[in-house]
């Protein structure tokens, strides 16, 4: 889509920026996928003689291109492993939220009555509390094991999918194709999965691109606070949290992961905006 054909409000949908954003996200995905091959936990052995070394360009050497941290661990290896953790948690979390929300929304639409009311009430409650507070309360109650933490992060955003899936299922039920399937003897399950789902997939995918960076920010925020990913695992948020203490002497410990997160969020925003304009002109906040 060129700038001339962009929609009336002239959203910053410059194609080369979108290409750049895709390239960056692709690079991150590649790093995450190959993390096991290019960096091993062995690369994270501490070496107190070479602690707090600056990155290349600030007096550092090729031995540690991004410098070292407070224990003399190589920052590059740490960043690679952290990108893997953060992307993995965000991806699994986004999928959990999408599947849960969509299912609940569809079930609510088909059942009606009490079930519908109950689901919509939960949506209301969810919308009335900032999610990070709920997540913190859950961590306070149940501790922060990795599996549990992923589930907590996964609950984020389910209410959006639920709302969309419910509304669109209700609308689609009245459409000819759903009614036709029903006349041919198709049950709610068959109609939902085989006929309605493909029709609302575009909107759900757009919601997914909005949710993914927010899920990543939630994970990194909680890890930054020291309540998310726990050592020996490392996430970009954990690194930033560690780097906070060394801001005076070693700024790179905080700045390197911070820049990576910010660029990832920026890229997904640009991509999401562009996708939204292309796939679903009706879905604007």
């Amino acid at each position, binding site marked *: 889509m060129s700038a001339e054909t962009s929609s*009336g*409000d*002239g*959203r*910053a949908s410059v194609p080369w920026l979108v290409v750049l954003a895709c390239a960056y996200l692709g690079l991150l995905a590649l790093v995450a996928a190959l993390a096991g091959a290019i960096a091993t936990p062995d690369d994270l052995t501490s070496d107190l003689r070479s602690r707090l070394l600056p990155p290349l360009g600030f007096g550092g050497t090729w031995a540690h291109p991004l410098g070292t941290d407070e224990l003399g661990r190589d920052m590059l290896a740490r960043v690679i492993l952290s990108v893997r953790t953060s992307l993995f948690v965000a991806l699994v979390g986004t999928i959990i939220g999408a599947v849960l929300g969509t299912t609940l929304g569809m079930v609510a639409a088909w059942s009606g009555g009490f079930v519908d009311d109950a689901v919509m*009430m*939960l949506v*209301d*409650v969810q*919308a*009335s*509390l*900032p*999610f*990070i*507070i*709920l997540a*913190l*309360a*859950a*961590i*306070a*109650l*149940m*501790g922060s094991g990795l599996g549990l933490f992923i589930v907590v992060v996964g609950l984020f955003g389910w209410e959006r999918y639920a709302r969309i899936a*419910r*509304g669109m299922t*209700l*609308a689609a039920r009245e459409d000819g194709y759903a009614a036709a399937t029903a006349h041919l003897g198709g049950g709610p399950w068959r109609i939902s999965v085989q006929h309605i789902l493909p029709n609302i997939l575009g909107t759900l995918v757009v919601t997914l691109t909005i949710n993914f*960076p927010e899920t990543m*920010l939630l994970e*990194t*925020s909680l890890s*930054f*606070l*020291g*309540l998310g990913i726990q050592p020996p695992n490392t996430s970009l*948020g954990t690194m*930033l949290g560690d*780097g*906070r203490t060394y*801001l*005076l002497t070693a*700024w790179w410990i*905080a*700045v390197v992961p*911070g820049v990576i*997160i*910010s*660029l990832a*969020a*920026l890229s997904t*925003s*640009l991509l999401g*905006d562009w996708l939204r304009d292309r796939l679903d002109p009706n879905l*604007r*906040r």
Partner: protein
Amino acid sequence: MLGFIIGKVMRAIIALLLVVTLTFVSLRAAGDPAAAFLPPDAPIQQVDQFRSNWGLDRPVLVQYLVYLGNLAHGDFGQSFADGRPAIVVVGERVPKTLLLLGLSFVFMLVLGLALGTTAALTHRTPLDRAIMLVTVLGYSVPNFFLGLLLILVFAVQLRWLPSTGSDGWQTLIMPVITIGTTGAAIIARFVRSALLEVVGKPHVRAARARGLRDFIVVAGHVLPNAAIPTVTVIGFILGGLIAGGVITETVFAWPGIGRLTVTAVAARDLAVVQAIVLLIAASMVTANLMVDLLYGWLDPRVRAGKRQP
């Protein structure tokens, strides 16, 4: 109109009751409350005392009603970190947080409105594009990183501002910017598209055709109509403000509710966490109710209209 108000108030009350119920259920589901609230080496008399205080020896429904009664009396249990009532521990932090969040709200509103209006009025010019790009950047940088960057530049390098603390107006500057930036970016984009939508409407073209000056058209005919959709995001913004407060207060060691939340969660001080959750839920539900009512007052169609699907 009265029916509309009663309906909204009922919904708010039900939402709040649901939050309280969920809190009750999850506290019970998390295991023996006596074990959770009391230190593990608590003497058996104290455990019994605790059980009878909270009515744990009675049926669940009675327990639930007692729980509601206690909350209504402001009894949220004891903080086991320092033994005082949780409501006191939380209450003494409220003024600092209100000051910080209040200023941040004003900051984001002023900056967001200014940027959004400027962008809309200079639609499709380089200035508009530049503002939009800045706003994308503004909500992409996570607030914990923005806070650290500000500290790095203004406290470590330039030494203009103190990096932590809560004494004097200087300590407010960086936290307010940190919390307000994301919201300002969202408001700016929202105001811009709301304005652009209204500018094309017939009543605005009519006002222009009557030869009214640009300022009058914008202030008298465009802004009031653009206010309607903007009001709806305020509840959403408030949630962001609270979430931002949790992070930002921790970054700048600001002694408010946000930092208390993090320390209470880390120490698993459940009474305090519970008090904070209910306090925030109550403020959010109230704020959303106000927004709904304001929305109904601004837009007559909402009052008369059906519930949206």
